[in-house]
């Protein structure tokens, strides 16, 4: 899984880098947006100041008609000429008030809510928006009026009875003399705030101290009066703000927006009257926020190559990841799964860990070990089988060791019994041909493949020799296996008792016709699959195991070894010039048969190696040759008491 892990690590690293870049982009975006917002608010402040300046100029121009009106001039001249200390005559006040009202109405949108006509001393002669007018009330000390009475056209901002007004004043001149002044005021209200808000496109609020006088917010991205007024209490108390300096951009509405607070030009600055401009603030906190900022223009700005890379690279990365997963996980897992299924279906006896990847190799070896333990402890009667012990099976190879009984020699005998000559065995049948049973008289031989199997029990009774069906011809790799001939029935040998029939040992389901002692369909140790398949196909043409054998044979527990064809015996007559190779080849064949037989009998085969097996066989062979004067020794494998056993047959010249 090295490639997959490396790829996953690479993808995680890429994701981490992408996340880092997002955070960097987020911080950079937020910083640049804040700066951009600060610049925008500064522009809003300048623009609003310009709007107020232009509005004041327009107001001054609009009241010029008041100051120039003949009725106004006349009345103010009369009021200025009265004796000091006398009150304003109602005959002057009433008509002048009506004139002011009419002139004010003509201004329409520019009409004022607070209008005064004052005499040369500043005494209020007539007024709009003040009722009743206090006796002898004056405006002469207000800088706006004082400068207007001195001949200047001037604007100002007043706080008048808890309201704020944008004021404008012009002198009234009659006959070359100053006779008074017109003082005109327009209230700072929501309508005025709305007009400015629409012009700028931001939230506008006018305040006095810490209270909002008037405000207006745009349809989108606006703030309520209480939100934009929240910082006022703290701002108003600051020294810089009291000195008349605009504030720095200040967070409002929980940092959803920022506003700048600016004192108004004019006398009302003493009352901490000013205006605020607020705009929403965009802060990126997640990928979703970043996506919300993307517009169609941004998408159209992506080049075709960039778009292709954004699509192709992730797909390639995904495919590579899938490839690593397939190579390092799916394929090994598939092989292991197939082998496990074969094991479960009985098509295999063990797993082959060598064919798996490292992880599954360990699992395979563990499963095989479990199978071995199960074979040792479970199934059939009898004591748990111990691992194969060659010495126990083959006998000690030391000089003091006696000839083991399982080699067919009885203990205590001075001379081995005469080994009957191996009867001539019929030629090995060709694959698909009519299987010929060795030792079967002609009258009992099959005449056609479809003919029934000869009664081997009858043949055995007739010939006096137990007969087993001809073993299937395995794919020859060297001389075919040699089976020891059946012990002569006439020579009673207590040691070599009639071979009991093979117990109904556990046979794999694939055994159609198992002939003990023959390297066959079951894959023997070291056997290749081709051999097994060839043997299996040969076995398919043979009658099933036991066909022709009576059950009585099995009752004796004797497992008979198939007769060896004569030509094989002739071929094994004696050491050839390459005798060592022949011997080694024979030992290897016996070893494979022995291992296969042990597996068939459910015996463990751990620790059973050819080297040790062959060494033991060689020592026994030497002993037998020296003891019996034989030219060579042939070993065969058979089943004795449910266990694999070996039998040695000396071969004389």
């Amino acid at each position, binding site marked *: 899984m090295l490639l997959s892990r490396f790829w996953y690590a690479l993808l995680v690293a890429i994701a981490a880098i992408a996340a880092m870049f997002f955070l960097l982009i987020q911080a950079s975006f937020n910083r640049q947006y804040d700066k951009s917002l600060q610049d925008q608010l500064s522009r809003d402040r300048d623009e609003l100041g310009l709007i107020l300046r232009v509005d004041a100029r327009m107001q001054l121009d609009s009241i010029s008609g008041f100051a120039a009106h003949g009725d106004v001039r006349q009345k103010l001249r009369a009021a200025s000429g009265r004796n000091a200390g006398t009150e304003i005559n109602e005959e002057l006040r009433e008509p002048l008030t009506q004139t002011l009202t009419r002139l004010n109405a003509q201004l329409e949108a520019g009409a004022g809510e607070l209008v005064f006509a004052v005499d040369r001393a500043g005494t209020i002669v007539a007024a709009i928006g003040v009722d009743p007018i206090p006796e002898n009330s004056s405006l002469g000390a207000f800088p706006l009026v004082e400068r207007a*009475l001195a001949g200047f056209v001037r604007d100002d901002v007043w706080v008048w009875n808890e309201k704020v007004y944008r004021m404008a004043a012009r002198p009234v001149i009659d006959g070359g003399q100053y006779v008074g002044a017109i003082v005109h005021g327009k209230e700072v209200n929501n309508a005025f705030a709305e007009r400015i808000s629409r012009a700028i496109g931001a939230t506008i609020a006018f305040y006095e101290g810490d209270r909002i006088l008037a405000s207006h917010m745009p349809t989108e991205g606006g703030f309520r009066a209480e939100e934009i007024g929240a910082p006022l209490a703290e701002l108003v108390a600051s020294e810089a703000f009291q000195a008349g300096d605009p504030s720095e951009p200040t967070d409002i509405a929980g940092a959803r927006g920022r506003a700048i607070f600016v004192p108004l030009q004019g006398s009302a600055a003493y009352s901490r009257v000013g205006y605020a401009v607020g705009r929403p603030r965009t802060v990126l906190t997640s990928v979703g926020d970043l996506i919300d900022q993307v517009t169609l223009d941004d998408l159209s700005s992506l080049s075709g190559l960039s778009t292709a890379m954004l699509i192709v690279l992730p797909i390639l990365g995904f495919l590579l990841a899938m490839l690593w997963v397939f190579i390092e996980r799916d394929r090994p897992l598939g092989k292991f799964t197939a082998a496990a299924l074969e094991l479960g279906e009985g098509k295999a006896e063990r797993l082959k860990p060598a064919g798996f990847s490292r992880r599954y190799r360990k699992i395979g070896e563990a499963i095989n070990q479990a199978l071995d333990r199960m074979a040792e402890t479970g199934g059939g009667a009898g004591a748990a089988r111990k691992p194969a012990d060659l010495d126990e099976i083959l006998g000690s190879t030391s000089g003091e060791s006696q000839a083991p009984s399982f080699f067919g020699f009885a203990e205590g005998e001075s001379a081995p019994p005469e080994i009957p000559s191996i009867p001539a065995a019929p030629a090995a049948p060709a694959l698909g041909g009519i299987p010929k049973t060795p030792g079967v008289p002609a009258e009992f031989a099959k005449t056609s493949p479809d003919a029934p199997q000869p009664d081997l029990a009858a043949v055995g009774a007739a010939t006096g020799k137990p007969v087993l069906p001809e073993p299937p011809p395995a794919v020859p790799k060297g001389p075919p296996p040699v089976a020891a001939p059946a012990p002569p029935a006439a020579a009673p040998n207590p040691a070599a008792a009639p071979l009991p029939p093979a117990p109904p040992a556990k046979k794999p389901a694939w055994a159609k016709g198992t002939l003990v002692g023959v390297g066959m369909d079951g894959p023997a140790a070291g056997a290749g699959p081709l051999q097994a398949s060839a043997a299996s196909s040969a076995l398919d043409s043979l009658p099933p195991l036991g066909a022709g054998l009576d059950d009585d044979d099995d009752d004796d527990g004797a497992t008979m070894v198939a007769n060896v064809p004569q030509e094989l015996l002739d071929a094994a007559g004696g050491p050839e010039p390459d005798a060592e190779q022949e011997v080694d080849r024979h030992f290897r064949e016996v070893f494979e048969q022995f291992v296969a037989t042990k597996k068939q009998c459910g015996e463990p085969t751990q620790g059973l190696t050819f080297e040790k097996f062959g060494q033991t066989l060689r020592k026994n062979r030497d002993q037998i040759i020296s003891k019996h004067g034989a030219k060579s020794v042939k070993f065969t494998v058979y089943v004795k008491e449910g266990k694999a056993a070996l039998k040695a047959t000396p071969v004389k010249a």
Partner: protein
Amino acid sequence: MLSLVFASTAAAVPITGSLRVPSNLAPETPPRDAPTSPNWERPNGVVDTRPPRIDVRREMAVVLVGDLTAGERPASNFQLHGGALQPSTMVAQQGTTLRIENTDACSHELQSEAIEGFAPLTTAPGNARTVPIPETGSFEVTDRLYGHVQGHLHVVSNLVARATVGADGRFRFADVPPGTYTLKAFYRAHEVASREITVEDGREFALEEPVALSLPEAD
């Protein structure tokens, strides 16, 4: 030297006089500038503008201090008129109550940080603000709503009479009991003249020569 003409009477007599005010005496500029400056201030373009002049009637205070042989000390009553304190230079007797009546059409919020109990309170048109005067000294009085409203209160312990000052600088004390007093003139936060006079019983007192003012240097 001054020659004084006395009126021979045992009853209180008026005292008249005049102040010599320099013609180039200009009103002080507001202490704050930039925020209070207007957007526009232009000459009308028709008639020449008038130069700014000090309002002597509003900004000069002439009083007599000394031992009072008869009558009562004058009350400390003043006004807010025309949008400012009238007079803006006030002289009051220690221990009396300062009373300022608002005769304007708008509200005011007078205050004085140096006088205990003189915090900004709204005085509506027609109402009066009263504050006890506990100690002598000179105190600044301002308006929280209007920066141009600046007054100075001089509290003395032996106030005898307070004069009415005209726009031309002439002043007049009404019904001053006979005795020797000190005539003082105040201009905003400064005492600009002081002269001893003796009022004889039954004889109207008139200062023949104007009282010269020792005005402070402009900042």
